[in-house]
């Protein structure tokens, strides 16, 4: 398993963010979904609901 920012399906080379969108390898496109997909997002009400980045003194809640 490789780590993020390494090449996706292909020889490894230096990652250069900010370049024009590269061509994705054939056969690696997104999945085909189902014909009718319910939107559950608004029904689910997880605790908090905030993604908060705190300084180390308050780190327990960090994302």
């Amino acid at each position, binding site marked *: *398993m*490789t*780590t*993020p*920012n*390494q*090449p*996706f*399906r*292909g*020889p*490894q*080379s*230096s*990652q*250069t*963010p*900010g*370049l024009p*969108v*590269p*061509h*994705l*390898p054939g*056969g*690696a*496109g*997104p*999945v*085909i*979904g*189902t*014909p*009718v*997909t*319910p*939107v*559950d*997002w*608004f*029904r*689910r*009400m*997880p*605790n*908090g*609901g*905030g*993604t*908060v*980045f*705190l*300084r180390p*003194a*308050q*780190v*327990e*809640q*960090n*994302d």
Partner: protein
Amino acid sequence: MAAPASTHALHAALSPASELVDDRRALYRLALELFAPGFELSDNLADHPIVRYEIGRALAGHDGLDPVRLKEVAAMSVRDAGVPVAADPAAAEMLEAPLRIVAPAGVRPQPLTEADGERFETVLLIVAEGVRLFRALAPAMADDLLAHVSMLAVMKKETSGGVVSASSRYVPGIVLIDEPSLPMEVAEALVHEGAHEKFFDLAITKEFLDARAEDADYFENSWSGARWPLEQTFAAWHAYSCLAQFFLSIGTEQLGPDSLLPNAKQRAAEIGEWLLAHERDLQGHARWLLHALMGDTGGHVGGQVVPSGVDGVAPSPKISQHWEFHVLPDVRYKCSATGRVVAGRSTNPPEIYWLDEDASWALTNSCQVGKFATFERAVLRATEEWQVGSAVARHRLENALDWLLSAQLIGRTDPEKEL
């Protein structure tokens, strides 16, 4: 040789940012149509974080929706610093919800506004320079993420309670940051929180998480011991993945004192490995993005889908050739610029569904109220328009109609039985 794929390339493979935003607007417009028929949302209103908060509350079953209130909150003044920055002296009141949601216990963050005079103007320059820096260092990533940031609010340092930056699923589109000293702090915050905003938009327009996410295992990270539910875990992994990519582009830029960039790659890997072990709890597009960003080259990235569908059960098409179909009276739908259809039923709270290409075609072409079309007529038309054989058209249409029936978006009649 294939160029390496980056977060923005993979996002674009799911949906280019402009299309994702347009899909999101279609969803909010549909929601408003369900609550307040005839009330139109401009793009500006549809993008406004507080408008989306109010609509989201209504969709969650909390209170109704007052269209007049939406126009009032959208009147809040902002200043342009590359992104709209909350500037209205009344911002503390108007942004009460996001400020309250992200605040640590016992803290009441206050936004900097034009009422703070020179202090606000100084911060505005730092924010503008931070946006410019982000765009200069990683232009494609900036285009990809900033498309989802509708507003930025700066919290006064003495009131921020240790919050460096924050965003909220309940108030999507607004990024809150502590009063910055360096443009790089702003740039990093926009990567971090912009990634979250991107995720929020993906989550409501693509197949990422369903209701089962709330019952999934919690992830405990190694660096603070914090335990996160699946949704927060995926959001954190996604943000760290973007931060790790951004770190590669910053050259010799000075980091802020609280920068996560040096640790981002390691943390993304740690979270990503856990997610891979729990991928059964993710939906198809989330799983695809996870595998792709984790560098999965196994060739099975695109092929595995757990049908999320209606009640989690894939229907078995049994469509009679004589049936006629119609959109049910309490159903409304909107088409996005890409042709995707989002449909909803006026239940309380409403039920909303994204339709794929075939289901969109079926709903908008063969199920129109007052224009009942038999299945056979629909097959003929689909064969022509889709330029496929009649057997293929029949199968695709059967599948789409059966799903639409299961979701109670359309009804059917059988004229032969009514004779």
